[in-house]
């Protein structure tokens, strides 16, 4: 959303009057605004990083190779540049030059020099067979070509006509041709919203034989290239496609390696999936083992690239996440938690049935909270990595939440609670009411946010309100809001599940409020025993109130013994202490 908005603004600043902005490739969207500002005029190709780098190169080339450049149309010069930039050595370049000259002279004699659309003219096939397009040779080719070449080539091909248009304004040559070109390109651009379609759209009006005319998405773009490639088309069109494929491969891969080539193969066979999926998966299975250890060291982008092996497509939302997820093989029940820094290694990830055993082990273990927390975190990690989101996940989070509550670890508890909310929303079953009650108590006791409380209360269903734990939480809320300490502590004593643990955190505050209240309203004294009983100092029938005395004294109460021998709080004195 935002990106398109900003580019919209930029386009309005440009005078080139391109109404629609081609969609930005996700990887490049960050680069767009800055480089757009830098590059002259309408840089709407959406590969500005490359364009800005290669623009000077292009100019240089134009100067170098265009001996009689001045007299030739600009687009022809570009065409020549493009052809020459593909050449790798002097022999090729010479051959290319001669071919260009041939074509040029032909065009001049035909009178089509100015009318031919050089931007869409197929590149001259080089005499050597370096760039023939067969599926199998692609691997070799990719390794032989240096990285920069495809980029440069692509720049020249992808360099949008808008950029030429801007420079056109500078070059008054062949204006009518330019206008014609811009018109065509405008139409072409309007038709295709996708930036990566740009080049293709340029070709489409003039290359009806081109099979790629109706692509609408990047994914399909890739497919189109690969399909052309697969058809073993030896024309220069497929040459371009191959380059593009390599370009993309270079852009996203980290290094040129055998795995990369294999991945490219698979990637280009992507849309043959239906026919060859079985063989592909066999290949990928074999490859997976080989490159797994490499992958564990590569960052996530490599993992994404690795997905190509599985025959999945380029766009994020269409990626085959199921094939991408790790399937664990580890059989150990106990495993320490280690934060992942790279793609996980399947041999360290435990599959689901092992995780179940691990969970029951943790539940019955006698060790301390830190150990259990650690184990549970690693179980959670294994579940997340394998994208297991079912009742086992719910159970794990619930167990962890309960343990965290009992240990007083609120941070961990909140984490688990938010995950649980998400899991419940997605329909997994679990102790929904229990955790709704915890949620209510958390919101009312810990945050002052009335809106959250309102929304939590509003989201309770009728059944939820009948549940004991939830009713308890609502009663606690009523007690807190009216300051009714007696009820509060009664509820505190009988809290179901772990509600009392959550109330624990509010107990101190409530006690203080209660004492203030009592000292304001009781005269002349209040028996300590009563206070102890009411404020929950007496655990389960125990009659001693020493704890209460200590607490009272700590808060400045003045205790005295009355006639009957009972300890009393002198309330008049307390008032002056507390109420100003």
């Amino acid at each position, binding site marked *: *959303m935002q990106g398109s908005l900003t580019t919209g603004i930029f386009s309005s600043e440009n005078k080139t009057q391109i109404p629609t902005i081609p969609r930005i490739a996700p990887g490049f969207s960050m680069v767009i605004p800055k480089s757009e500002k830098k590059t002259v005029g309408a840089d709407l190709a959406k590969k500005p990083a490359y364009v800005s780098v290669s623009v000077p190169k292009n100019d240089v080339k134009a100067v170098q190779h265009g001996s009689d450049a001045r007299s030739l149309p600009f687009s022809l010069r570009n065409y020549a540049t493009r052809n020459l930039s593909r050449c790798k050595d002097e022999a090729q370049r010479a051959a290319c030059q001669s071919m260009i000259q041939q074509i040029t002279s032909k065009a001049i004699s035909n009178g089509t020099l100015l009318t031919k659309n050089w931007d869409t003219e197929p590149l001259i096939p080089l005499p050597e067979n370096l760039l023939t397009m067969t599926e199998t040779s692609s691997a070799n080719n990719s390794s032989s070509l240096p990285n920069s070449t495809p980029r440069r080539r692509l720049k020249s091909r992808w360099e949008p006509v808008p950029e030429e248009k801007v420079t056109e304004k500078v070059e008054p040559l062949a204006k009518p041709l330019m206008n014609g070109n811009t018109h065509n390109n405008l139409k072409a651009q309007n038709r295709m919203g996708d930036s990566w379609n740009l080049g293709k759209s340029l070709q489409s009006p003039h290359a009806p034989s081109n099979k790629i005319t109706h692509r609408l998405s990047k994914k399909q773009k890739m497919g189109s290239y690969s399909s052309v490639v697969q058809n073993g088309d030896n024309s220069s069109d497929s040459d371009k496609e191959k380059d593009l494929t390599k370009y993309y491969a270079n852009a996203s891969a980290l290094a040129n390696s055998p795995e990369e080539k294999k991945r490219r193969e698979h990637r280009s066979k992507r849309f043959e999936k239906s026919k060859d999926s079985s063989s592909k998966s066999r290949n990928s299975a074999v490859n997976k083992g080989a490159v797994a250890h490499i992958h564990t060291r590569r960052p996530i982008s490599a993992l994404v690239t690795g997905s190509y092996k599985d025959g999945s497509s380029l766009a994020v939302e269409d990626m085959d996440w199921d094939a991408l997820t790790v399937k664990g093989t580890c059989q150990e029940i106990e495993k320490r938690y280690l934060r992942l820094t790279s793609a996980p290694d399947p041999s360290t990830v435990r599959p689901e049935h092992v995780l179940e055993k691990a969970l029951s082990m943790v539940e019955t273990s006698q060790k301390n909270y830190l150990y259990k927390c650690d184990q549970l975190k690693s179980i959670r990690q294994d579940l997340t990595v394998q994208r297991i989101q079912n009742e086992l996940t719910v159970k794990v989070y619930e167990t962890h939440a309960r343990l965290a509550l009992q240990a007083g670890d609120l941070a961990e508890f909140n984490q688990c609670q938010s995950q649980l909310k998400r899991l419940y929303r997605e329909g997994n079953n679990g102790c929904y009411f229990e955790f709704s009650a915890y949620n209510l108590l958390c919101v009312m006791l810990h945050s002052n946010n*009335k*809106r959250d*409380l*309102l*929304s939590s*209360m*509003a989201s309770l269903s009728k059944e939820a309100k009948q549940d004991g734990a939830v009713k308890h939480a609502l009663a606690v809320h*009523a007690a807190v*809001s*009216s*300051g*009714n*300490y*007696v*009820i509060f502590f009664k509820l505190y004593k009988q809290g179901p599940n772990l509600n009392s643990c959550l109330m624990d955190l509010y107990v101190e505050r409530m006690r203080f409020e209660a004492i*203030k*209240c*009592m000292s*304001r*309203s*009781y*005269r*002349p*004294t*209040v*028996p300590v025993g*009563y206070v102890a009983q*009411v404020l929950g100092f007496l655990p389960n029938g125990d009659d001693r109130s020493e704890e209460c005395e200590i607490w009272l004294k700590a808060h400045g109460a003045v205790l005295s013994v009355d006639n009957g021998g009972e300890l009393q709080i002198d309330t008049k004195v307390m008032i002056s202490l507390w109420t100003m």
Partner: protein
Amino acid sequence: MEAMHMVALEIRLLAEKADRELVMSGKNPDKLQAAGSFLMKVFGALAVKGPKRVGALYVTCQLFKIYFRLGTVNLCRSVIRSIETARNFDFEDFPVKDKVTYMYYTGRLEVFNENFLVADQKLTYALMHCNPQSESNLRKILKFLIPVKLSIGVLPRRTLLEKYNLLEYADIVTSLRRGDLRLLKQALDRHEDQLLKCGVYLVLEKLELQVYRRLVKKIHIIQREKEPSKAHQIKLEVLVKTLQWLGITMDVDEVECIMACLIYKNLIKGYFAHKSKVLVLSKQDPFPKLNGKPV
């Protein structure tokens, strides 16, 4: 300026519709949020000095509507700050209807934060300046003003409630008058969903203490008639019995606690003698008027 108003309004309405569509097709409704941030930028452009200032309040109101709909009410704070602290422009310069809308929303925010006095001020202002013809607007204002007033101790007349179809408050008002706790609880239960959605449920919960106070007052009056000399002493058992009669079972401790709370919060003047379990009211003015101070 009107053009800008139209644009702002349309953006909001379109975004709402777009979100509805998105929700129906199962996608994430974020258009309203985008509209909100966009209008924020517009507001920023308008808030600078100059003749354009006047339009700023309209955009503010649109922003409020969006934020209230989205629930991200905390975002309103920044807008309010810039309006309130701007010395350069006079609040009176804005068109009346914008002011009314602005006061209405800020009043609502104060209700959420439980600053009842300020909320009362703002909502009353809105009420007074609101166009008497637009009944629905008046109703909206009253919906929030009534709980605020109730907290302060001002009860609306039944005719007012009937006129604006705010009958959910009718029972609550009656219970306050009578000291009928049971009725209050029933009324809150019945209209719980509505009140929760409006966000006034919490405010009304706090009225419980006022109902207790009323009850005690009634007992006091009855006792005064029966035995003037001892009227200022109310036995706890009497209270317990009364509540039982109302259908609410509470044991002695709980009632004691409530009494203590009432005294603490100045709803009742007096003290509680624990040993004899008697509530002793002060001889003069045991039930001070709330006098505009919220509970």
